[in-house]
């Protein structure tokens, strides 16, 4: 019955929260893993190639002058560089020679708020790391410890919302009890959806990403039917393709830059449940789900932040 399902959902949420409080961020780390760090004197263009070559979208930075960590490089930094180039096209040379050290100045030049640098200790609870991420709207959190010999801070790893939700999906059987339909639990439904069409200039879509701090913009046809999505990650391939040529493209043309192994955009309907969404996260690299109606018309989007926020505080 609906009542029983609602009761089970509450029990499941409580169990998952207990699980997150009983585990540390360290527990999420594989037994053996790699951590790629970039020296801040690298050129921005070179760092882009390193990210793409290693199939990663972010990396901690190492400032070799202060011999300390200097925050995270993320797709937002590349969006800032594109905005900067668009505002100051005569500064093209500077963009070519821009090093990672210079990214903070780019933020100031286009008056963008720097992303709040949050962090968590590896042996603090996973629940605490999740709460920090939700509060700061960050999608990833560096795990920082202090080297016992040198008292220097060290980045042990960087946890993403995706990795945490995958860890929950893999280890919490209670996710199968989350059977209430999305329409009844109010996740991601009350959103003012910004959208574009295939003809929209890609630079306008990039402005939407930056000004609304979102990581994707849905692309719809004349009947508001969802046909594709432009993601923050696509900006990296745009820059790799050559800044000067590609900024005049439409978003439909820019999406032809995507590599062939792109897995596609996930959709669902308001009748879907978190149990099957968590099952999908367990098996695939899902970063968000667009909610469509029976005709494929766009309704809303569910992000990993929405799912994490509901698990921590929902119901």
């Amino acid at each position, binding site marked *: 019955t609906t009542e029983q399902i609602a009761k089970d959902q509450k029990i499941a949420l409580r169990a998952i929260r207990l699980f997150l409080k009983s585990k540390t961020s*360290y527990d999420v*780390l*594989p*037994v*053996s*893993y*790699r*951590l*790629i*760090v*970039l*020296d801040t*004197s*690298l*050129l921005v263009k*070179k*760092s882009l*190639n*390193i990210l793409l070559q290693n199939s990663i979208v972010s990396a901690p930075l*190492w400032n*070799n002058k202060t011999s300390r960590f200097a925050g995270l490089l993320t797709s937002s930094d590349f969006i800032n560089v594109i905005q900067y180039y668009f505002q100051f096209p005569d500064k093209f040379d500077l963009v070519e020679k821009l*090093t990672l050290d210079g990214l903070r100045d780019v933020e100031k030049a286009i008056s963008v708020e720097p992303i709040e640098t949050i962090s968590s200790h*590896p042996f603090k609870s996973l629940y605490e790391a999740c709460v920090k991420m939700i509060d700061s709207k960050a999608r990833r959190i560096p795990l920082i*410890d202090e080297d016992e010999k040198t008292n220097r801070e060290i980045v*042990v*790893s960087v946890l993403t919302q995706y990795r945490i939700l995958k860890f929950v999906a893999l280890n919490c059987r209670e996710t199968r009890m989350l059977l209430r339909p999305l329409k009844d639990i109010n996740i991601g439904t009350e959103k003012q959806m910004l959208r574009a069409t295939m003809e929209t200039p890609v630079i306008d879509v990039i402005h939407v990403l930056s000004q609304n701090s979102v990581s994707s913009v849905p692309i719809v046809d004349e009947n508001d039917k969802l046909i594709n999505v432009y993601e923050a990650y696509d900006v990296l391939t745009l820059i790799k393709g050559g800044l000067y040529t590609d900024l005049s493209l439409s978003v439909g043309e820019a999406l032809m830059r995507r590599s062939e192994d792109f897995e596609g955009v996930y959709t669902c309907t308001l009748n879907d449940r978190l149990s099957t969404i968590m099952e999908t996260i367990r098996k695939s690299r899902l970063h968000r789900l667009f909610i469509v109606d029976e005709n494929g018309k766009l309704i809303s989007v569910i992000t990993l932040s929405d799912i994490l926020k509901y698990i921590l505080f929902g119901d």
Partner: protein
Amino acid sequence: LATTSIKHNTLAVASVVRYQRKYATQILYAPL
């Protein structure tokens, strides 16, 4: 110390270290 060939004026070096009971391959990319 693990190293890669220097390509496009960029060098990568790595070292495997133990952190508690787990092993991290720490990689640093630096410009020539």
